[in-house]
């Protein structure tokens, strides 16, 4: 004990302690600076062998986001794809057959269920105030793949998104995210969930064109699948 106390009183020991603290202080500040830089340039090109940290969450049910509001595809002339179906009382009839694979989530607190959560296409006039489709409107459809070809390319953007939101497309999308998306890191690392992924995936992109200024296939150019649109001659 005495030895230790004497040792601590030695000037060089104190110097070492001070020096170490200084080094720790400097490194930690520098590291912090480095971190801010990385934040700013978050999406710089990464090494190709670097695994991309996908953030996509396919299960919407346990997301903490408020689900009283729907997101929709905003841009359309007359059609919209709704992320969430209408809120329903548990006693109201379900909006789709029980034998579909659509996910069902129960919210115990609210005694409400959210059926058939995604993939509604409706006319703009049937949009509710909360941004959701009115599922009771006659023209509202769910998971509609109209105009979509076998290669996963559709001629109408909203139908592409709706089709892409089908639960059975999830493995396809996961495969795409892991392999094909290397050229699209900027975009798809920023995508947060299934809905955003489908909105982004269905848009025309560098994969949609030939000779830069011509569509590969002007008819079916919105693709949720892995392959680019079929190449048609100019």
């Amino acid at each position: 004990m005495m030895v230790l106390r004497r040792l601590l009183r030695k000037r060089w020991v104190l110097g070492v302690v001070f020096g170490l603290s200084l080094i720790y202080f400097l490194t930690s500040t520098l590291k912090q600076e480095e971190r801010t830089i990385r934040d700013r340039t978050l999406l710089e090109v990464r090494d190709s062998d670097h695994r991309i940290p996908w953030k996509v969450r396919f299960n919407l049910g346990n997301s903490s986001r408020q689900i009283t509001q729907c997101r929709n595809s905003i841009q359309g002339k007359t059609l919209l794809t709704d992320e969430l179906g209408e809120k329903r009382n548990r006693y109201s009839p379900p909006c789709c057959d029980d034998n579909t694979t659509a996910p069902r989530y129960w919210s115990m607190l609210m005694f409400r269920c959210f059926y058939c959560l995604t993939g509604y296409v409706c006319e703009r006039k049937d949009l509710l105030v909360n941004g959701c489709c009115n599922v009771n409107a006659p023209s509202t459809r769910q998971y509609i793949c109209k105009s979509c070809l076998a290669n996963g390319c559709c001629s109408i953007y909203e139908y592409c998104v709706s089709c892409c939101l089908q639960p059975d497309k999830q493995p396809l999308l996961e495969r795409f995210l892991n392999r094909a998306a290397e050229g699209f890191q900027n975009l798809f690392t920023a995508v947060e969930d299934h809905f955003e992924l489908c909105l982004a995936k269905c848009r025309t992109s560098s994969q949609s064109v030939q000779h830069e200024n011509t569509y590969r296939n002007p008819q079916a150019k919105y693709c949720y699948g892995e392959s680019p649109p079929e190449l048609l001659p100019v």
Partner: protein
Amino acid sequence: QILYHCLFALILKHCPLSVFPEYIVAFTGYFSAKARSLYISSALRSASGGALEWHIVPRENPASDFPSDFELVHIRQASPSSLLTLEDHPYIKRVTPQRKVFRSLKYIPSPEPAAPCNATRGTQKWQSWQSSRPFRRTSLSLGSGFWHATGRHSSRRLLRAIPRHVAQILQADVLWQMGHTGSGVKVAVFDTGLSEKHPHFKNVKERTNWTNEKTLDDGLGHGTFVAGVIASMRECQGFAPDSELHIFRVFTNNQVSYTSWFLDAFNYAILKKIDVLNLSIGGPDFMDHPFVDKVWELTANRVIMVSAIGNDGPLYGTLNNPADQMDVIGVGGIDFEDNIARFSSRGMTTWELPGGYGRVKPDIVTYGSGVRGSGMKEGCRSLSGTSVASPVVAGAVTLLASTVLNRELVNPASMKQALIASARRLPGVNMFEQGHGKLDLIRAYQILNSYRPQASLSPSYIDLTECPYMWPYCSQPIYYGGMPTIVNVTILNGMGVTGRIVDKPIWQPYLPQNGDHIDVAVSYSPVLWPWAGYLAVSISVAKKAASWEGIAQGHVMVTVASPAENDVGGELTSTVKLPIKVKIVPTPPRSKRVLWDQYHNLRYPPGYFPRDNLRMKNDPLDWNGDHIHTNFRDMYQHLRSMGYFVEVLGAPITCFDASQYGTLLMVDSEEEYFPEEITKLRRDVDNGLSLIVFSDWYNTSVMRKVKFYDENTRQWWMPDTGGANVPALNDLISVWGMAFSDGLYEGDFTLADHDMYYASGCSIARFPEDGIVIAKNLKDQGLEVLKQETAVVEGVPILGLYQTPSDGGGRIALYGDSNCIDDSHRQKDCFWLLDALLQYTSYSMTPPSLSHSHSRVAPPTGAERPLPQRLEGNHLYRYSKVLEAHLGDPKPRPLPACPHLSWRPRWLNHLNYSSQRSYNVSDFLAMKCEAGFYLFLSNISHYIYAFQQVCRRSQYISLLCVHGCQHFHHFLSVRSLYKGRTWCPSRRATDFSDTLKQ
């Protein structure tokens, strides 16, 4: 336009077919011109014993007086080994082949134009054919990598007081003092990047790179400058220092960018929910459907897009895409004395040609000349170009957006409405130069903060008598029997991304103001998406005013509806009034009426239609629309000043009444002809119509030679015609025993005491023996292009005059070159010749200067040389309105029906409207309540009556899409879901929205 393309060079990798290679020799340091020359000669002497033929290409700019680190060397038959020896020299860093490149950051010298680079015509070589297809997106600042080197701005501009900060001139400090600094608004800058720790920026949210260069930094300074104008917080202050900056690097240091990069970057901007996007980059290719579609998608996702209108002024018809789109805010440039900058591109849009008429663009103008902004690493610098004007508006838009409490109200349409309604009109400048006028930030702030969702029109009124603002409409009164005057109005819809026009627009003539003397037909977008659509108004004089002179007035009422966001199934509606005022004169005599054939001129096509002057290598495409109000504007002005009335034929030759016109003018036609057109024209000429043809070159060997590899589309481009489509023209004129040759001639000469320049034209191969033919000695340019040999050909027939033999038959005049009446590359005009030819064709007066010219020769018989044939395998049918693909050769399509306008049924208003003040676009909303209330009181009974009348009428006849948007329907793939709804708008009688600007 010609001036600045060649002011810098760029190195391209793909140059497989060099004819006369020039090389950029880069040195290890800065040396004087003498020293550089010494080094090169010593290096080359050792290369091949001095046998090499070379010289240094002089650079005649102020920078040449200063030490430089490169030299341009012209070497004949350079072998790889000699280049290697050149590189061995201790002071020579590297040798790269030189390519003149067009995708440039454009540089404009000071107000007095410097000697054009092509002033030394004789020494030009043909080496740049293989370079990149020029007309693609360019970065629209003036200046280049050589900004700092040239010092060209040192002429008059620097003697003035130090330029003030543009944000302060536009009174941004007023808004700053109110606490608005752009916070919470996401701005995307699509440009050349931004370096990481630039001291001017405090809120760079992220930087992304979409190019093939692995850097995020700005190597040119262009992107930094643009970002600085928007958001710099110190020194040269930007508009919105607290805005969230998102830097998108889409343009490389080599000034390359591809559509595909843009597509991906735009997708990311949509995902990131960008509010304002600045694009100081543009190109003329509005036929790039993937790009145009993507811009629509972007604005449909509520991104306010601001873009530079282009630096191709003062030529008209030079608007750049995407600034020319209805949903984008297109910005032109002015200087600090409120003059339109010379470089700023002028309207009209050429999308709508030939059947329709162009839209008014730019939308607004603002300072773009000598503006100060952030330097690449630090400090400030000043720069010019519409590249600069665009971020001024983008910065202002960002600042404005941050002042609005309810951000829901801010969308691409409402922002554009506020900007154009508040803009200050510049005196003495027409709408194709200034759009709605000069940006006024404070007034825009006032309007935006009292904004309620509504529709508005651009232009908001049609006054064909208002000069010079309504040029060209004000330059020629209308008369009975003339081609309908089309005004292409843009409908902006701030109520929602999609909308529709309810029922049909109503034409309401003012009886006391002679409104019944005109007929009005309207066609419009079936769906207004995104945020905008067109309303094409065709105006004709009624038969009863055939010999009447005076002013007629009335208005068109349009009601726009959009689905309401917060009311299921509900709609927002907005009614706008378009006042119309025209001047009518009695129908002029036939001899004074000239018809311009627009139908056979191709507007900017996605194919390769080479320029008419082969010397103009920096501008190989013919892209200005060839319209009397674009690149034939000077010719039009001249004809008007000579008292001719010029009308435009936007339909086949079968669609006009030839007995009305003295002369049909066909200039530089690229299109083919329907067989019916050929027969009809022959009949018309027999009956007294005269014909003037200005042809251009067509030589298949030269066409093969001028193919080039396009860096942008990554494919070879082979021309689909020559300067004009001579084989097709020959089909048209062969009935009179006339034909043009495939010769290609060039040179200066004198004709009737006028200096003339023949720039890449053809000759007359065959002409009737009783005709007058003028021949001149010219250089064989074909030989020069193909074999680099110079030869003078004696007695080339270039001009022919012929009186057809039938009784009362018309006259025909042919000339082999159109460059002397075209504004694009004109060196010497020949309007006097056009006058002389019109004297001949319209009044049968043979100019003695031509008929007794000593250059008159015997008409050629065309026996010695075969006539030109169409280039085998050309793809003209892809762009042609006449041809369609067929097994074997393309065949003509069936002749389309002539346009038929359905005139709006009239409802006559007996109220005197003479109390109307001049409609000025001054107060958008300020006067709204007052004027609306007044009109409500005075007119409500009449409006209700009007609506009832309209509702009672049966269906209007089908609409004809005179507006060119029909061409785009196929990719709009619009299907209106609003068919068949009946709506009687009488309940809306009180709903006067914006344009009550009386």
